[in-house]
């Protein structure tokens, strides 16, 4: 075990770690530029439109009633979980992201109480992944027969678990942001 081989060993392992970190940074910047910033640009436009035009007040009136009560949130989740609608609402979670942003604006303005943020996160999202079931199952190397049963199984399951998740989140939101007003 000579001095030279120790130096080589240290140099190699340090080089390896730096390589990993550098690659991680490269992957990150790649994702941020391709996926995150474009969505930020799009969301910023929507927020600008909501805040400066009358659309905001109009949406506020519509959303305020449904998003600041448990029955209203349940209604949203039931609609999103309808088996024919849920695959249409799913792709890229675009709908959930826009509705989430709209609700965020209304929460920020104080039109929706802050503790409703938690159940709202579940109410706007019972359709998550409903557009992707065949692909997701194929990634898990499922047989065609499984896909045939799996698609309706997941869609039907959401009709139960979608509203249920809102109820669980509602119960879990007790004590969240209540002291602050």
């Amino acid at each position, binding site marked *: 075990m000579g001095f030279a081989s120790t130096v080589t060993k240290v140099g190699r392992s340090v080089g390896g770690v730096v390589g990993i970190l550098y690659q991680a940074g490269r992957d990150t910047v790649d994702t941020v530029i391709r996926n995150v910033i474009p969505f930020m640009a799009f969301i910023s436009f929507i927020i*600008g439109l909501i805040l400066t035009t009358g659309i905001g007040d109009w949406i506020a009136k519509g959303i305020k009633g449904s998003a600041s009560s448990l029955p209203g949130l349940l209604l949203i989740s039931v609609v999103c979980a309808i088996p024919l609608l849920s695959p249409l609402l799913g792709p890229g979670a675009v709908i959930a992201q826009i509705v989430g942003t709209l609700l965020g604006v209304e929460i920020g303005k104080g039109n929706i109480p802050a503790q409703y943020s938690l159940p709202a996160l579940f109410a706007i999202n019972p359709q998550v992944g409903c557009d992707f079931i065949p692909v997701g199952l194929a*990634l898990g190397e499922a047989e065609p027969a499984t896909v045939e049963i799996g698609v309706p199984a997941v869609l039907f399951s959401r009709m139960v678990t979608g509203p249920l998740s809102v109820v669980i989140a509602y119960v879990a939101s007790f004590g969240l942001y209540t002291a602050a007003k």
Partner: protein
Amino acid sequence: MHFLAVGFLSAVTVDKPTGVLGALATGAEDFIKVFNKGGSTLLSLMGGILPTLVVLLTAVNALVRIIGPERIENLGKAAARPGLQWYPVRYIILPFVSVFVLTNPMAYTMGRFLPERFKPAFYDSAVSFVHPILGIFPHANPGELFVYVGIATGIQQLGLGLGDLAVRYLLVGLVVIFIRGIVTERITARMMTKSEKGE
């Protein structure tokens, strides 16, 4: 930044333009106002959450590379076992670890270790976790960040901390994916026996 507001910077006060030209001028101001507001929103997003996100993503990406995705395969094999005590492994631990390490959409590949009758339930469980994880680990699904960030921005505007919401979102998410896994597994089992009888 406020292109049409520049005129007002000079101290001279003028009457508000009237007539057709006045209407056009007001229209132009309202038009650009939308984009000025959007621009300042974009700037606050890029200056606010983006730098933190980049650093966090880099750190977690490096961690995942050092751990190596192949290490979690044993977990997938353990989750395939029948019996009541393996339910939490299959529908809480495995989805959490797969989504954390493999991220959306590669997390669903972990389904290959499970028998066919568990696959739809595992997919349902894993895909339902790609948003609740975002509050604390945004690296898992950065392309769909705004499901959480959209609402979180509102909380921030009220001057409230996000930690409480992020933790509760994650924990409730774990409960929900567990229930989803069980419910979907039951529905799948029932449909499979039905289709076998039909043949």
